[in-house]
């Protein structure tokens, strides 16, 4: 109990004093997570919209596949990307392993199915009369699709934020592909893991508190945007 109290006090001191190591780790985490969320959104949202508005023969199968990929453990994605970017892998020549790029690639792979699945379901529930109205007002296929997506914009934003929440808290990919190098690839979650294994809880707790704050902010934004998405 005494240890916990001391660790908590030290953790709060690290946060309040904006400790350099804490700042470096948080900045790395945010950089990787924001980058992977942007890339995954640029890929996943068009895929989800296309899937929702198309009449593909295997549409249902693709949706099931995307939903299955939502449950994939981060370490499995880490392992999969590892085999591709390791020195003997297909992308080995680019020396990506244990670099920020490796983490961003892994996290992007992890959340593309999440963004696509959420985008697909968001667009699927848009009032079908919107599509018919756009068509009867002379819109072509692209403009009609963009109009439908625009009606679901709040839900699409929620999909992006949910994806960000997934990557900011993941550890498997960061550990396997990043190597937990201080000042380079060390993220909040890998730092917590390392500090805990060393029995030094203060920094881990400080980072844990910050991670919780980030999660709270993400949830707060999701809730606010979710309210706006109601169609009247």
């Amino acid at each position, binding site marked *: 109990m005494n240890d916990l109290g001391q660790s908590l006090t030290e953790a709060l001191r690290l946060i309040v004093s904006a400790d350099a190591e804490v700042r470096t780790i948080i900045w790395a985490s945010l950089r990787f997570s924001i980058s992977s969320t942007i890339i995954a959104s640029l890929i996943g949202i068009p895929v989800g919209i296309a899937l929702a508005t198309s009449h593909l023969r295997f549409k249902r199968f693709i949706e099931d596949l995307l939903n299955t990929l939502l449950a994939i453990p981060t370490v499995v994605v880490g392992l999969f990307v590892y085999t591709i970017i390791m020195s003997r892998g297909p992308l080995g020549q680019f020396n990506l392993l244990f670099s920020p790029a490796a983490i961003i690639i892994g996290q992007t792979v992890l959340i593309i199915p999440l963004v696509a699945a959420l985008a697909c379901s968001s667009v699927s529930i848009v*009032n079908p*009369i*919107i599509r*018919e*109205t*756009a*068509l*009867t*007002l*002379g*819109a*072509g296929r692209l*403009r009609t699709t963009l*109009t439908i997506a*625009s*009606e679901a914009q709040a839900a699409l934003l929620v999909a992006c934020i949910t994806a960000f929440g997934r990557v900011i808290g993941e550890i498997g990919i960061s550990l396997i592909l990043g190597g937990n190098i201080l000042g380079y690839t060390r993220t909040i979650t890998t730092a917590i893991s390392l500090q805990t294994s060393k029995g030094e809880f203060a920094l881990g707790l400080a980072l844990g508190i910050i991670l919780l704050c980030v999660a709270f902010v993400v949830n707060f934004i999701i809730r606010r945007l979710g309210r706006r998405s109601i*169609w*009247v």
Partner: protein
Amino acid sequence: MGVENAYSIRALKHAYDGKVVLDIPYLDIPSGQICIFSGPNGSGKTTLLSILALILAPSGGSVSLNEIECWPDPDRELRRMVTLVHQKPVLFSTSVRNNLAYGLKTRGLAAKEIDRRIMSIADAMQISTIINKHSRKISGGEAQRVILARALIMETPIILLDEPTNSLDDAYRPLLVESLCKTSQNLKTTVVIATHDTNFISSLSGRILRMEKGTILNPTDI
């Protein structure tokens, strides 16, 4: 010289899950007139309008628009000749002004012309005061008038209206009748209306076709 037809329908059939809901052997709808389909709910009015609006492919038969066969693949130019107003008010989630401008932008009209048409229709439909409001912030009756304005502003050769008086306040019914008559007379627009509102029907000077169980009882009255 005979009257030109906006639509020529031959042996039109439509079925949902094997059940025939529309069966019209023969029908011509002349250009530049007001044509009213009246009948109880479930008589096939909405299905017929969806087919005429080129958003629902019929199960069989032919539909010609200005003597051009519509199905199986109506092109964009053909679609742009028709505007449909649904019976349930649906506005895009943006301002009233953007809703009115939507169809005009798809046709590539100049901003000045778009503004001119918006001002003109807003004045005619008495929605000038809500033009900059978000579509979620207006009442159901106002939404219905904006939807009608969004259709009329297009000045397409054909306008289809599905139960246009459903959400319209009684006070604005004369406004709707006046707008439709003006549009039909001044622009020679073909106005096709599906309704079961007998008061509304009696206020319009158009041909009335009675529908029941998916068929038209008096197809040659037109």
